[in-house]
């Protein structure tokens, strides 16, 4: 394996052909392709203002014998910028995790080293297998007023950088969003929607560390959200929905006492119950009496609720789709 040489983007790079004299006749190649003599100064290869595309394997051969005299792998990159570090506890009171990334790529390998200090005590942040840029710590103490100090250092062959976060135990508590959010219409209630959800599964002890919730909802046709804060329970009935309008609903969670709100849950959609239009009932009755002779369609029951009230048509023609049932075909009636 040839050695690796790291150079900064924009640098001027001079490569010597091993122990060959300056005036020796040599041929340089880059990834197997001959390099033009204009880049040579004697037997030295001169690369000015290198860019990322010039990374690769460089080889130097003695002119006549074509013996390989020198080989290196050039990697062009940058020293690391200040890394971005985030620490959060989504499983309070068990512990917290820190994750990091670089704001811009360096294009060469980087090593990250994290240190966590609580008062005078060094703590070990155990690296996660997946994702790689994350580690976790168990709280050894709870309710401490002593801050945690986390320092992340990033090093690569071209330089190093670091960042530090200092925080209180309770300041970084942010649960994951609620799970399994479900919204359903309430039969015979055109302005209600029943919403239920579950505590995030990552929250270890909701009984001792209860969560409170924030629900937001709006009809798809409007931009403004309605908000409701709920101090307990994992369900809520919306009672002021616009009849017949499809709603989008989300829920967020927060520890009852400390920390910040979770991100919003996955959005769910629901439309309040709507009464079946009366003229549809009439047509259904007519269709029912003639169904013996026209077996190509099946009349829906008169009390059937349309889940997604897609009622289309004009004049006396109406179509109602019900989930899981065979599509009914209607004949056009002339009034």
């Amino acid at each position: 394996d040839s050695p690796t040489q790291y150079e900064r983007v924009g640098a001027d790079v001079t490569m010597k052909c091993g122990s060959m004299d300056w005036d020796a006749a040599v041929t340089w190649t880059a990834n197997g392709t001959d390099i033009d003599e204009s880049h040579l100064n004697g037997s030295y290869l001169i690369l000015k203002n290198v860019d990322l595309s010039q990374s690769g394997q460089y080889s130097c051969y003695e002119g006549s014998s074509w013996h390989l005299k020198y080989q290196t792998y050039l990697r062009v990159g940058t020293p690391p910028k200040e890394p971005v570090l985030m620490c959060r506890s989504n499983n309070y009171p068990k512990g917290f995790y820190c994750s990091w990334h670089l704001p811009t790529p360096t294009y060469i390998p980087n090593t990250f080293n994290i240190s966590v200090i609580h008062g005078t005590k060094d703590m070990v942040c155990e690296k996660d297998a997946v994702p790689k840029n994350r580690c976790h710590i168990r709280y050894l103490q709870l309710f401490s007023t002593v801050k945690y100090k986390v320092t992340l250092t990033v090093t690569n062959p071209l330089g190093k950088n670091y960042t530090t976060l200092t925080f209180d135990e309770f300041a970084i508590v942010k649960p994951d969003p609620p799970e399994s959010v479900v919204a359903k219409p309430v039969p015979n209630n055109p302005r209600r929607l029943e919403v239920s959800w579950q505590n995030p599964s990552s929250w270890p002890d909701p009984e001792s560390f209860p969560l409170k919730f924030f629900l937001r909802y709006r009809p798809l046709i409007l931009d403004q959200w309605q908000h409701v804060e709920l101090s307990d329970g994992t369900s809520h009935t919306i009672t002021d929905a616009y009849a017949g309008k499809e709603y989008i609903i989300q829920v967020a969670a927060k520890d009852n006492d400390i920390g910040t709100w979770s991100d919003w849950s996955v959005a769910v959609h629901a439309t309040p119950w709507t009464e079946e239009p009366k003229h549809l009932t009439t047509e259904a009755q007519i269709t029912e009496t003639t169904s013996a002779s026209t077996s190509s369609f099946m009349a829906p029951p008169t009390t059937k609720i349309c889940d997604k009230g897609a009622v289309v048509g004009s004049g006396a023609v109406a179509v109602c789709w019900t989930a899981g049932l065979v599509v009914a075909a209607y004949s056009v009636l002339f009034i």
Partner: protein
Amino acid sequence: MAAADSPSAALRRRDLCSRGIRLAGKMRADVVDLLDTYVEQQGLDASATVAAVEGVPLAAVERWDEQTGTQRLLENLAAYRAFRALLAQMLEEQREQLGEADAGLGRALAAVLLQVSAFAYHLEELLRLESRGIPGEEEDGPPPPPRLSLFEQKLRGLGVLRELAQWALRSARDLRQLAKPSPATGTAPGLAESP
């Protein structure tokens, strides 16, 4: 007195725990507000690190989840008794130093002191319910602390209020643990065990 694990005692315990949780929540909110006022009026830096001061009970605890109910109650009671004395001292120092100039701060301190006293009494009620002897308070009290400079007094006050805010948080959690029914006997976990 009802046996510690009788249904009426269990109900009474749950009621005391619920009220205690609400008291602790209100106390914490008031202490946090008081902290903001205190920092501003004392001309302190809110992010200043205050070293642990002798006599201020630290809320930090290891293996919190393994504590018995009795341990929780006794540690809480000891802490709030200490805070009662510390806040009374802070109030006196306030009055000596500033008189009328910080009447608002004085009133806020007095209100928190009242809540701390009430909470300590609440904890004593819980201990009585468990037929636990209530540890007596030292008759002579702790020895008077050495006279601190004005700045040292202010920093100690900051430390006291910060720890009290954490204690109020811990107390709510402790009482929730106490309020949990034990799966086997229906009593709160840990209370049947001796310290």
